[in-house]
């Protein structure tokens, strides 16, 4: 959906990602999603009187990795306390970074060639989680709330973009690309549905050339689709307000996925005063050159580079193939695809099998070796396996590993001898004389008809190329 004519949508995104560390930011409790409530807590992450924070070095490593991936400047940083009362915050202050964040500046290039600036990417601790009883399960109308502190103290990096985004589609592309980067750095698992990656959108509208309009912050965006829909809704809401003579009030709004609209969250009379001051229980972070270099050198290729590498192996890719390429990089299968191509696999075939069959069994990808994948593709290419058979072998390999030849033999995927194929084709020609005549006279579409019939007759065992060759030889 595009914004109404004459108006420009301006979006800045704040993305919070939980870091994939073993333990929390300031204590040795497990950083684990889905544990029984209040089982991963200690004096520190519960904020008990007398407790003190000690910084997790891996959280710093991952924050710097993100900084490098976003082309940020990594600098001396300090921690600050952000003071406010809320029951999911055990200390009633959050340890975060304020005017001296670990990463400042940077940018993210999107596949469409546009560039979004990054203002900062800083470290902070996560809060606990509250569930609300009574009412609709949302805060309003609840009688009481229950708090679980398992998530309290989980390390977060907050990435703030500049207000450079100009459409909901671009916002979605940014979020998607950023997610790929966070996964590629090893910093995050990018699971928005689990809350390990959360996005807030700052949306405003203006006539092109005008100064920035008043922005609203949209929260509760749990998927890329919600992000896109919410921005579209909010931009239109603001435009209609302004066109109707009203002004946009600066506020935080909640996105309702079911109703498809944003609504005001309960506004406070005054803006919250966080009284930021330097955290006296922590010391300054000064990552020296050696530390930074170690992180930078350990950084693998980012999605953009991985896509480019794979793209270079395709000639004149179709749109479908480009989509498959994105899926393959997104899922991290580009390494195995490249290895297969190097071993002689036909690039578009390798891509297709990875984007479809491997994607279907992504949780078990560890069971599939590069050699097994390459061998299966080779068997399909040589005609030893039909497409259908090859797919079955791949799914089997994902399920339990093993050797493709052995699996093929077990399953009785024997190559149809050319004699039996010839006999089958001959029989079908006899059965469908009209269709054969039309094919013989040049109607190529009928080739598909006969291939389909051959497949039916051989229960998918025939090799498509071999069938075509047979048909042509009998023309």
């Amino acid at each position, binding site marked *: 959906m595009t914004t109404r004519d004459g108006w420009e949508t301006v979006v800045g995104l704040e993305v919070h990602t939980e870091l994939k560390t073993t333990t929390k930011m300031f204590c040795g409790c497990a950083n684990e999603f889905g544990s029984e409530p209040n089982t991963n807590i200690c*004096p520190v992450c519960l904020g008990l009187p007398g407790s003190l924070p000690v910084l997790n070095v891996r959280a710093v490593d991952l924050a710097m990795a993100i900084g490098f991936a976003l082309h940020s400047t990594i600098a001396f940083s300090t921690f600050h306390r952000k*003071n406010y009362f809320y029951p999911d915050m055990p200390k009633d202050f959050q340890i975060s970074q304020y005017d001296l964040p670990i990463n400042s500046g940077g940018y993210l290039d999107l596949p469409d060639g546009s560039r979004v600036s990054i203002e900062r990417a800083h470290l902070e601790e996560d809060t606990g989680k509250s569930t609300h009883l009574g009412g609709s399960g949302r805060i309003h109308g609840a009688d009481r709330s229950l708090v679980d502190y398992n998530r309290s103290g989980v390390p977060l990096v907050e990435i703030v973009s500049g207000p450079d985004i100009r459409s909901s589609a671009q916002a979605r592309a940014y979020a998607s690309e950023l997610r790929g980067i966070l996964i590629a750095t090893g910093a995050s698992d990018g699971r928005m549905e689990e809350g390990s990656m959360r996005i807030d959108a700052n949306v405003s509208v203006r006539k092109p050339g005008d100064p920035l309009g008043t922005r609203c912050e949209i929260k509760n965006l749990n998927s890329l689709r919600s992000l896109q829909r919410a921005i579209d809704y909010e931009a239109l809401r603001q435009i209609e307000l302004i066109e109707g003579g009203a002004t946009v009030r600066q506020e935080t709004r909640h996105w309702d996925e079911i109703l498809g609209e944003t609504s005001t969250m309960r506004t406070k009379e005054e803006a919250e005063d966080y009284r930021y001051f330097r955290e006296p229980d*922590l010391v300054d972070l000064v990552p020296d050159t050696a530390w930074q270099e170690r992180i930078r050198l350990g950084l693998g290729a980012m999605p953009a580079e991985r896509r480019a590498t794979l793209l270079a192996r395709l000639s004149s890719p179709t749109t479908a193939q480009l989509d498959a390429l994105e899926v393959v990089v997104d899922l991290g299968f580009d390494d195995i695809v490249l290895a297969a191509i190097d071993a002689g696999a036909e690039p578009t075939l390798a891509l297709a099998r990875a984007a479809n069959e491997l994607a279907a069994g992504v949780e078990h990808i560890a069971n599939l070796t590069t050699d097994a994948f390459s061998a299966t593709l080779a068997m399909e290419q040589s005609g030893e396996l039909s497409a259908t058979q090859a797919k079955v072998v791949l799914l089997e390999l994902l399920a339990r590993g093993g050797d493709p030849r052995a699996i093929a033999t077990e399953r009785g995927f024997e190559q149809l001898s050319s004699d039996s194929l010839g006999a089958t084709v001959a029989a079908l020609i006899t059965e469908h004389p009209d269709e054969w005549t039309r094919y013989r006279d040049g109607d190529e579409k009928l080739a598909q008809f006969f291939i389909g019939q051959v497949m039916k007759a051989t229960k998918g065992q025939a090799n498509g190329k071999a069938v075509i060759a047979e048909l042509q030889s009998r023309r």
Partner: protein
Amino acid sequence: MRTALDIARDVRSGATTAESEMVTSLTAIRARNEELNVFLFVDEEGALDAARRVDERVTSGDDAGVLAGVPIALKDNLCTTGVPTTAGSKILKGWRPPYSATVVHRVLGAGAVPMGKTNMDEFAMGSSTETSAYGPTRNPLDVDRVPGGSSGGSASAVAGDMTPLSLGSDTGGSIRQPAALCGLVGVKPTYGLVSRYGLIAFASSLDQIGPFAKNVADAAALLEVIAGHDPMDSTSLPEPAPSLLLHVNDGVAGKRVGLVRELYDGADDEVVAEVERAASALRDAGATIVELSVPELHLGLSAYYLIAPAEASSNLARYDGVRYGLRVDAEDVAAMNEATRTAGFGAEVKRRIMLGTYALSAGYYDAYYGQALKVRTQLIDAFRRAYLEADLLLGATAPSVAFAIGEKTADPMAMYLSDVFTIPTNLAGDAAISVPFGTGQLGLPIGVQLLGPGRSEAQLFAAARVLELADGRS
């Protein structure tokens, strides 16, 4: 009373038992606690059990520790597993921590035997132990007077012969000032020398835990036990505990002692007289006395009364009735927070929380808190310059001897002025010790203060020992 080190030696040799020492301690406590209100909690059974275990170690030939069998009292802002810890406040009434402070583990590891938790100004905010929600503690030397604060209970426990050792905490003078008012040795260690893990925080950048003892050697021994790096405290100095006991008799020959005007200006004449007498004693022992002026010290009080409350206002936010401690119910959680904190905190704590919140709030941060942090830098620089001309500094600890209960409670500012000589050391993060030296007209003890740069405890103990000998004690 025998010294703590005497007791430990006797327990290790079998000349006495830890159990009998604890019985002595508990008897003394029972005799006077009701009158003096020193202890908020005493665990007789637990203490005797722990004492017996020390005796078992002795009998089985194991090393029972440097402080084997020595009874020790703990200020009630030190977390002790399963033992009520209130920080002198109603808001933590009945709270039993599920963990112990690092210093508690260390004293236990050295064989000492804690028997109870001592009274204190609420959340360590005070100089007389009169802001405690559980009533004031009376000075054992004169029950109509304060023992000082905020570690008044810990000081009284030792001064009242209930226990030879205790631990307190010092943020602006809360160990040294009670030590002076009760005739004890009290030490505020270098910031970071002693772990703060498990110390209920007042002002994080100023708080330190330290010893009370009747003599210098005992204080040195106890500090050595609790000092040294702790991975649970990010601000803790990286090195292990320094050797302190061995240096107590090093003397002061060749040392330059700076007599700092701003560290006794405004004190009562009788206090100043003792400071001067102490200077003479150090000179007689071979030190050179240098008269110094460090005018920046005047700013210390103002900087402290912005920095400490600011940090405290944030440290005390967690007392919200959600997870532990007092809860006063209300319709919604914010109202519950408010009702709980209003009922649970005393007036002094509320005052400081509001002062701190104000100093940090938007529009005032730069003028108040921001400025105070800069003043702190200037104070640190001023001390560094002073330490070019002197190895240690000498001054008063408190402006007067122990004052009467209720004398200063009407005027907060008057109470704050009690800390004028002790506060600068906390701001600088340096080390200081108060050592008893002489008495005032009413026979009440006076303490003089020795200050040194960070990590200079050994030389401070040596100088304190010289004064201890000169004053005719031990």
